[in-house]
């Protein structure tokens, strides 16, 4: 009973905050709504006994991805008049995407997969089942190849990003801390007999 209450709470709040993301005039408010939405999604994972995924959701999406979003959004123009300038220009493409998404959502909602209530509140696992251990065991055995491919792709992207932004400036002076620390008295001082 309590679980259904919590499910409705998290689900309702995540829908409301997702609407807030789209409807808020201020981009910073949108970002805050999106963070709140992620929290509620994490709450839904908790209700499904998937505490590992719930926590990772907060750690990665809220703790890392959204921080970078916020960082960029902080620099944006917040005057609404200027934001509306390209409104008509982007309307056809945006409208098309919205219609396609709408059809997909209606199709998914009416397919019957989500109509039974027990999807939302699944059977509970016993306390002894450790989420992290289970995920680790299946990830490093059955899905090892996929996992490693994903890891390599991420690594390549990481190195690519570093290579793209790395530029050494010849004219800039850099501090060599190890050289500074290793300086001895003899290197700098000279005893002069007068």
């Amino acid at each position, binding site marked *: 009973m*309590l679980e259904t209450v919590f499910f409705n709470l998290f689900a309702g709040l995540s829908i409301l905050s997702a609407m807030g993301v789209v409807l808020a005039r201020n981009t910073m408010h949108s970002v805050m709504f999106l963070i709140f939405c992620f929290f509620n999604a994490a709450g839904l994972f908790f209700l499904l006994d998937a505490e590992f995924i719930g926590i990772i959701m907060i750690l990665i999406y*809220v703790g*890392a991805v959204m921080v970078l979003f916020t*960082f960029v959004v902080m620099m944006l123009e917040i005057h609404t008049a200027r934001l509306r300038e390209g409104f008509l220009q982007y309307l056809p493409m945006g409208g098309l995407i919205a219609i396609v998404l709408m059809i997909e959502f209606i199709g998914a909602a009416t397919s019957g997969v989500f109509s039974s209530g027990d999807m939302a509140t699944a059977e509970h696992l016993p306390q002894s089942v450790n989420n992290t251990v289970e995920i680790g065991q299946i990830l490093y055995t059955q899905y090892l190849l996929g996992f490693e491919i994903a890891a390599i792709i991420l690594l390549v992207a990481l190195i690519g990003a570093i290579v793209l932004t790395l530029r050494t400036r010849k004219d800039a002076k850099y*501090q060599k*801390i190890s050289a500074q620390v290793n300086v001895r008295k003899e290197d700098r001082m000279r005893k002069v007999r007068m």
Partner: protein
Amino acid sequence: MNWDMAAQAGIWALEILAIAVPVALSVAYITYFERRVIGWVQVRKGCNRVGWAGLLQPLADGLKLVLKETIIPTTSNKYLFIAAPIISLMPALVAFAVVPFGETTLFGLWDVMHSMSMSNLNVGLLYIMAISSLSIYGVLMAGWASNSKYPFMGAMRATCQMISYEISMGFGLVTVMMLAGSLNLTDIVQAQAGGLLHWYMIPLFPMLIVYFISGCAETARTPFDLVETEELVSGYYTEYSGMWFATFSLAEYAAMILISLMTSILFLGGWYAPIPALDFIPGTVWLLGKTAFLIFVFIWFRATFPRYRYDQMMRLGWKVFLPWTLAWIAVVGIFIYTPGLDSIINFWMPWR
């Protein structure tokens, strides 16, 4: 709603109070302790006027802050300006929910030892990492909502700093997970049972240093306080006053307590005594004693080190700590899986 649920809710409320109230009180007295210790280091008195030896000074400070007017700048974003201190205080307090303060049988009432934490979460370590990564938002919001240039720059610096050091902090904790074989904080402490040599500070000494110094950077304490330096007036909370200002420092000190608690739990054997003969002293006393010592080290740092420059701080995080942690993960991994070497590391992995 039946009586069981009501009783459970009452117990939860009591547990929350039993953690939040001591945290708030100890924050007040850590400020006093800090001023006295820095005074002692710098060969002066520190605050010693209000009450006996200045012991009422934190209360006087608190009263002053409450009575001050809270000024909200007209050009600021009102909602976020007011929300920011709360957003920064919330993660600092919520993280305490999984911290185990010891083990107890409640004076023999229970047959088995229970962990003294509000929630003995299976993914406790990840929870702490996730929640402490949220403290950035308070800083970011405060800097942005103030709509003023110095807070904004302070917030930018704070964000860069926190993101950078979170990575080495997280990787440092991976080695702890590898040795303990669990993300549950109680399990991690129990894996360190049996005296000083079993503590993770022995095999993971570089990680202890990385974790503690990264914690220092996360909470923006001196050597890493360029978030709130004089050149930025006082960084992201320049525009704040009165109680909202105090909320930020409450969050900062609560985060400092949390980092000290976590360091003692993860590396310094939690509630276990250094030699088993001293186990007659309650575990909670040991844990809090270790925490108090680490808080002293925080203050000691503040009194000792000059501030890092921005590029030096970035270098330390990315070029020193990150390679250290990655290398130590490899070292621990090699020790665990190489025949012959695993007998050495098994000393710290009793569950294996």
